[in-house]
């Protein structure tokens, strides 16, 4: 298999010591296994995803992404931009599309970028890591890499919102995307059929400012996973992962529940299935330990 190279946009939360550094770690392991090279966009900045609109207006906000794309086009010329964070992917792709639609906006953002000697050509596809896995690598290749099938694991594939809407993965439905289940199956685990909270919003960016509203939604996601006797939830989205994982104690306190549902990334499942250690798979960074997966990783 030819080596694949991408221009990588990690986003703030993937940085060392940040909330989804575990995703970053596991993605790195996954890419090693799949012979994928991720070239970080040099000196990338925050995309202001999720809540940035409240402070920044249209142009300043979109210009953040414009800078990233411009840097990528300058330094990682010809490489598709790939993001692992759903919100980063969405914000960047949205910005690119808006610049395509609106010449005025494009001109203005270039005027701003010129202040630092940058120029946006806006010719670069903005892709999600999942797209790379499905479209460029394929289930068959992934399946072929499995050395340690995740047998006996029942996993609820929680896709969430922003990986899924408004762009989603080509060929998948907004209401019932199947790729996560297919991936789980490819890795030898048992996907929860008809997981009815598959695309339920977890409250996203309101987790901080409207915690109760957000946690009510998270509760349904976890409950449904328990109802389907899932061992864990898997998600492609760092916002979802964190929200669903870390507030379980608070939900337990408020609702007198006993939630302790591990929430992992697809990349972590892949790492374990590919035969890598718990540490390489960043399982040590779980707030709620994914015991069954760790056990497998030790085999």
């Amino acid at each position, binding site marked *: 298999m030819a080596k694949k190279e991408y221009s990588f946009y990690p986003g703030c939360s993937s*940085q060392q010591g940040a909330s989804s550094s575990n995703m970053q770690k596991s993605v790195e392991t996954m890419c090693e296994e799949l012979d994928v090279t991720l070239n970080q966009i040099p000196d990338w900045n925050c995309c202001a995803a999720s809540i940035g609109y409240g402070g920044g207006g249209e142009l300043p906000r979109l210009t*953040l992404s414009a*800078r990233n794309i411009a840097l990528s086009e300058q330094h990682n010329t010809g490489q598709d931009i790939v993001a692992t964070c759903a919100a980063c992917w969405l914000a960047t792709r949205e910005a690119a599309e808006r610049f395509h639609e609106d010449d005025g906006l494009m001109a203005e953002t270039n*005027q701003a970028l010129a202040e630092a000697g940058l120029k946006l050509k806006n010719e670069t596809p903005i892709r999600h890591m999942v797209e790379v896995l499905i479209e460029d690598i394929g289930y068959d290749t992934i399946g072929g890499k499995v050395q340690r099938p995740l047998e006996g694991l029942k996993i609820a594939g929680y896709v969430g919102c922003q990986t899924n809407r408004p762009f*989603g993965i080509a060929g998948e439905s907004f209401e019932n995307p199947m790729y996560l289940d297919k991936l789980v199956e490819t890795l030898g685990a048992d996907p929860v059929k008809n997981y009815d909270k598959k695309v339920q*919003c977890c409250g996203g960016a309101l987790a901080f400012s*409207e915690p109760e*509203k957000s946690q009510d939604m998270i509760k349904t996601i976890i409950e449904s996973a328990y109802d389907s006797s899932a061992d864990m939830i898997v998600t492609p989205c760092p916002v979802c992962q964190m929200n669903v994982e870390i507030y379980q104690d*608070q939900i337990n306190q408020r609702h007198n529940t006993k939630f302790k549902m591990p929430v992992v990334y697809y990349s972590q499942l892949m790492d374990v299935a590919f035969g890598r250690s718990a540490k390489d798979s960043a399982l040590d960074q779980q*707030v709620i330990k994914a015991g069954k997966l760790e056990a497998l990783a030790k085999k």
Partner: protein
Amino acid sequence: MTELNTAMIEQYRNSFLQEVEANVEEGEWVKMCMQCGVCAGSCPLGNAWEHPPQEIFMMIRAGKREAVLSSDSMWMCTSCYNCISRCPRGLPITHIMHGLAHYAQRLGLVPKNQPTQRFAQMFWQNLNKKGRVNELKLGLSLYFMNGFGEGVKTSLKMKDIGLGMLKTKRMAVTEAFGGHGVKDLSGFQKIMKKAHELEDARIQKSGN
């Protein structure tokens, strides 16, 4: 009431819809709503909205400027994009809600202490300071946004979560001192300054 707000009222006396078209991100879509209500029904936080999106669109067309801009409804948007994906008319509802929220904030019409608005403001400032978000500082400023006393309480409430994150190395105390940022900070800040200027000019022009 801000000066800009007064100017806008003057300028668009007749038509709030036209004001929205000219000044709100994706505002030109508002007129295309056909009042099917699928957005309201699709919103995961729907019951928290005093005025769901389709009503806001109707209110805009009915000229209910004050009621719309001072509403906290659009601040309830979780950016889940359900409404966009289902809207039969293709309205970018999420963006319009964001746009309205931002516009209300620009005009100084947001209800006092609207938590999302305040958090958003902090987030924006935080990311602009160094070009990347500092999660730790953002979290702390959030906890302390209602004063020191409240902040300590919130911090205590959130302490277990914080500890969990620290233990799993998903939060770093070092972030409190410096932390991540872009290297070309001055270039970054020049770009953002210019972007702000261009946007402000557009809005000012519209209000005159």
